[in-house]
């Protein structure tokens, strides 16, 4: 009889231990993109293949578009220690050409004990996109409300919009986007088509060519000046 009680108590203790251990087991360390969150204020930044664009902390026209990411697993437990190199940004419409791949837009540092990481720097990239996705270990962070990819309203615009041809991508016409990680005459020629001149007073406005405040039509001297910082002289290019 006494032996039976010990057996019962042992089983109960084992059950408690199993339950406690079970909680730990649920912390899988595998990113759950629907339980993770990513937030930022809307903004516009110029990015450059050389990496000397506008920081996310200093977008065009003021404000702060620093991105805050909180990574959680399926049990809604924060995941600490994810390396910065495992977190990066991409364009929501695949409109960016990152310099050096994902390392062109890594997080500032590894996730904290609370699973938090920030992105303070703009992607080192060419191209143009209307928003940014945060990616963790290859998974796009989703909107916690509907589990759909969360596109942050940070417009990203580069003076590298066109390709000069080989060894880069084939050149493309009109406003078709084909960045080649360097700011060249091809980009300048494209920019000029959106700059009002006596020969083209009604130049069409394109947001991708609008780099400086005040944002909105028409493209103006401040936009041209900012473009030229990355073009005139030796055009900026991805150093990798």
């Amino acid at each position, binding site marked *: 009889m006494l032996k039976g009680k010990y057996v019962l108590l042992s089983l109960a203790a084992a059950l408690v231990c199993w339950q406690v251990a079970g909680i730990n087991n649920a912390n899988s360390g595998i990113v759950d993109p629907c339980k993770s969150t990513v937030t930022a204020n809307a903004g516009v930044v110029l990015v450059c293949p050389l990496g000397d664009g506008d920081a996310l902390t200093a977008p065009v026209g003021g404000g702060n578009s620093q991105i805050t990411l909180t990574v959680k697993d399926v049990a809604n437990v924060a995941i600490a220690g994810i390396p910065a190199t495992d977190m990066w940004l991409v364009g929501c419409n695949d409109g960016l050409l990152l310099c050096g791949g994902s390392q062109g837009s890594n997080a500032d540092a590894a996730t904290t004990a609370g699973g938090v990481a920030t992105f303070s720097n703009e992607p080192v990239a060419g191209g143009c996109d209307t928003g940014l996705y945060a990616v963790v270990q290859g998974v796009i962070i989703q909107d916690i409300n509907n589990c759909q990819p969360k596109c942050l309203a940070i417009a990203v615009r580069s003076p590298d919009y066109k390709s000069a041809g080989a060894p880069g991508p084939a050149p493309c016409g009109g406003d078709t986007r084909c960045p080649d990680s360097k700011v060249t005459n091809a980009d300048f020629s494209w920019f000029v088509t959106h700059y009002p001149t*006596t020969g*083209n007073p009604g130049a069409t406005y394109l947001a991708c060519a609008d780099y400086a405040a005040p944002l909105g039509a028409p493209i103006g001297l401040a936009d*041209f000046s900012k473009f*030229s910082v990355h073009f005139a002289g030796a055009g900026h290019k991805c150093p990798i």
Partner: protein
Amino acid sequence: MKKALAGVLAVALVGVIAGSAMAQVPNVQVYFDQGHTQAQADCGTSGTTATLYVVMNNWNMNVTGVDFSISYPPSLVWLADVLPDPTTQVSIGQSPGGIAIAYANCCFLDGFQNNIVLLPFVLWGPCDCNQGPQPLVVGGYTPLGKTSPTAVRKEDFAEFQGVGMTSLICAGVIATEPSTWGQVKALYR
């Protein structure tokens, strides 16, 4: 006679003061010499070419872009715009209708000095100083609806407006007509 002389002196003094005040504001002016000291000139020989010097004066900031237009008198035929350093400067448009010039990151303009920003290449046409002075006027970048020159500050890409100055060909010849001091005073009543 003394009154007339005093009136002429007063008008001259006002002109000097106005000119001095204008010289202190950010402006863009065309000069006829590389040292940018001559904003007035006599007629050149018809059929010969010349270089003009467009200078930004008194902007007192680091400049990474500037735009303006130039209205040339009939005696000067515009041929081309030349940038002082095309390896670090780019332009859009042409000075008669409006030109925008921007600078590489390495080589922005030190606007605390007065810099030559453009070298228009012109041809002298028929020119007769007996017909009076001919203005060479700096205006705004008209395709963007500007009426005055503007420049962009390097640090924050903020745009500032300056004054477009007028240079003169045949400045020493001023058309006159006989009048009386009373008629002159009547203009200001």
